[in-house]
């Protein structure tokens, strides 16, 4: 059995434990422990700020708690959790824009300033430049780039998370990589 098959088998077992009322709390604890770091970093790359990430991550697992009972076992648990997390992160960004009446550029500028802040980010200049270049990408390209470039996720899994076809994702990633390379070289 491959590592991926082990993970899926584990997840099926976790979901079954969750559906049993007696073991539900314990199963949730195991699910959180298994996915909290991965999902945290997925959200953090979108929101940059730790406090916002913490809010979105907590909401993600509360939604997991509320909806896992209806989870169909023909889906992958981790792509399902990633989808909830992505939606929560994007919803939080949208809320920020509407709350402060900020256009898209200003929110990205605010996130970019956090990368300059050494209390948030400790990377080198070129690493900062890479993070800022990612922030300049359109939303979907940014998500695809993060999931493929940093997490090396399969296109099939990204497709399940974002609800976009594999072909469109490959095209998005290709364009995103070219844009980032251009920014890094020109700067």
């Amino acid at each position, binding site marked *: 059995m491959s590592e991926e098959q082990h993970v899926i088998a584990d997840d099926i077992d976790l979901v079954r434990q969750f559906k049993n009322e007696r073991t539900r*709390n314990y199963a*949730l*604890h195991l699910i*959180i*422990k298994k996915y*909290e*770091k991965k999902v*945290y*970093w997925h959200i*953090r*790359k979108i929101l*940059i700020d*730790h406090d916002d990430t*913490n809010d979105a*991550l*907590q909401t993600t*697992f*509360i939604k997991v*708690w509320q909806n896992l009972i209806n989870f169909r076992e023909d889906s992958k648990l981790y792509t399902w959790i990633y989808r909830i997390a992505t939606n929560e992160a994007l919803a939080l960004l949208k809320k920020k824009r509407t709350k402060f009446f900020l256009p898209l550029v200003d929110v990205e500028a605010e996130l970019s300033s956090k990368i300059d802040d050494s*209390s*948030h*980010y*400790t*990377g*080198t200049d*070129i*690493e900062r*430049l*890479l*993070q800022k270049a990612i922030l300049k990408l359109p939303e979907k390209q940014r998500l695809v780039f993060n999931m493929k*470039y*940093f997490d090396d996720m399969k296109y099939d899994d990204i497709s399940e998370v974002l609800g976009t076809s594999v072909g469109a994702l490959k095209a998005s990633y*290709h364009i995103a*990589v*070219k844009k*980032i*390379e251009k920014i*890094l*070289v020109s700067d």
Partner: protein
Amino acid sequence: MNANEKHIRNLTGDKKPEDNFKVPTGYFDSFSSQVKNRIEAQPQRGFSWEQLLRPVYSIPIAAAIVLLVGYFVFFSQNPTATQPQTASNAAIDTTGLSTASIEEYLLQDVSLIGIDEEVSQDLFALVFDSDTEAETTSPATTKQPNSKDTATQPSDDEIEEYLLYSIDETLIESL
């Protein structure tokens, strides 16, 4: 990995954002219990009678009770009050209308409809001739509704003649 991606990795190194973004110490140690606390603080989703006191439920329920009580009080005090008319019993009684009265009504109002009088007369002739014939024949010779008797139906020649006479030539040419 394509050439562009390789180029980016060469330029920036292979460090992950996880290595550069700061996270408060011990954050992941307490995260699970933070979620647990928030779940416990959530209101229970099950049914409780107290929910019915919320305006969103209580106002419609009160209105429904008032209407129901009012309905029974009204009909218990007025036993002769008629039930509301349904669509079936409110339907127009057409059995008392004769073909002649309908024909007369249509002939009077034809100018309002905007049909050419000559055409309309032909139409009436076509529609009502069969009826008037049926009315004058004895019950023993009355035709069945689905009878294919050609005596009451216009012949092909009649239809052709009617169409040639009534329809504008330009319209035929344009077909």
